């Protein structure tokens, strides 16, 4: 943990849950990564939105992602430190196998091993306010399963 006092409150804002994105958070609670899909032109999109930027359709469903992904870019956060996280904190931007991207914190990878194209998997963990959200992990460890909190 950080050297911050335990009672310090996290600065992470609560989720803004809307009719457009609720599916993502519901699925994450159940250990699934869902990607929004336009039912007219079949284009996938993330982050979620009310309309398809390709064909302007408001009709959509979702597909379940495999969780297989590769690292597109990353950072290791040192300062400032929030009580919700353990530092140094690695955060990644990944290319999902399905073609969309996703941001999540990275667990279980030596920070010296972070590189473009590194194969990772999407797991799930409790985050700042107890929400279960995606977390990136080494490939072949916990994909698709619901992980515990750190």
């Amino acid at each position, binding site marked *: 943990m950080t050297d911050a006092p335990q009672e310090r409150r996290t600065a992470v804002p609560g989720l803004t849950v809307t009719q457009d994105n609720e599916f993502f958070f519901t699925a994450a609670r159940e250990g699934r990564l869902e990607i929004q899909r336009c039912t007219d032109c079949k284009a996938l999109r*993330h982050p979620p939105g009310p309309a398809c930027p390709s064909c302007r359709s408001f009709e959509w469903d979702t597909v379940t992602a495999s969780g297989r992904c590769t690292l597109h870019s*990353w950072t290791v956060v040192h300062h400032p430190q929030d009580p919700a996280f353990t530092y140094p904190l690695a*955060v990644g931007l990944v290319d999902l196998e399905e073609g969309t991207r996703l941001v999540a914190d990275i667990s279980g990878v030596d920070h010296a091993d972070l590189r473009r194209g590194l194969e990772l998997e999407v797991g799930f963990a409790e985050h700042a306010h107890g929400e279960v959200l995606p977390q990136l992990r080494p490939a072949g460890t916990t994909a698709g399963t619901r992980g515990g909190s750190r």
Partner: protein
Amino acid sequence: MTSPFSGGAAIAGIGATEFSKNSGRSEWQLACEAVLAALDDARIGVEEVDGFALFTMETNPEIAVARALGIPELTFFSRIPHGGGGACAPVQQAALAVTSGVADVVVVYRAFNERSGHRFGQGPPPFAYNQNTDQEYRNWINPYGLLTPAQQEAFLARLYMEKYGATSADFGQVSVLSRKHAATNPKAWFFERPITIEEHQASRMIADPLRLLDCCQESDGGQALVIVSTERARDLPHPPAVITGAAQGVGPQQISMSSYYRDDIDAMPEVELVAQQLWRQAGIGPDDIDAAILYDAFTPMVLLQLEEYGFCGRGEARHFIADGNLEVDGRLPVNTNGGQLGEGYIHGVNGIAEGVRLVRGTSVNQPTKTIDNVLVTGGSPVPHSALVLAADR
């Protein structure tokens, strides 16, 4: 082809408070002091102000300043979002208002206690906790630990390094240059405090690859600008800084600080869009720019902006800087006031004032060559804005 408003308005006055870490007075007072200083610089009466153009993030509303200063009537008031990205856009608003005749004297100001009060570098700002579409984008970054601008910008910096072989020391060149310029600027917080590249490399990591000395300051202070018609500005004491280009830009799939879903996340199409408009409006190109104030919240953005504005090729900015082009007597003197890394962080508006000084010939680091056109830019990677300020020749 120039734009109908191009050349029709000018910045005739600039004024600021001191730039500090603890102003000891209210943000409201800072705003009033800066406005009075800018009007005094222009030799325009306070009662003549009839317009204000501000940031939406400005916490001192125009009606509060008008009330405090006894400004009787306003016929134009406008606000622009996106923080430092929009820094130059209130000047565009002012130029549009003045050249269309809806106002005669428009003041732009930015004033805050950003160091002694809420610090942008410490975490999400108060409005981040509003649950609405404006803040919904935070769902996809904040819960995973990307809470500050430095953390959110690090993905771009890392990818840029990976693609073009740039290093932390390449970014550090910008810090060293800014502190060198600040060292001779008595208004700069870092006056007489230059740094070496070794000090940059030894500074603590904030969000890898961004080190402390890659990050701009946090400052208390206020800066104001007075915009009138170029015709009127010619009758005022200072040479006009003519607004020949003023543009805003939003690119495809734009998200505040986190346009991570584009093919190339280190490209900034909104900056390119602004550049194209400026060149068209002003009837010039990058080769005609004699000096530039490039928004430097974080050093990598100076490199990326040099490339997006066409001063050098993609991936070549580190060589362009290493060759001395950004020095006071180089091809393109940059951030001659010390920038926000060295002078102070007034959300880019102090940079616009330096652009005016360069046109007037009064910068503390005035290049010896003739300055006809100065580029001043807002922040990135967010919706962007920029200006071309020109000498009246």
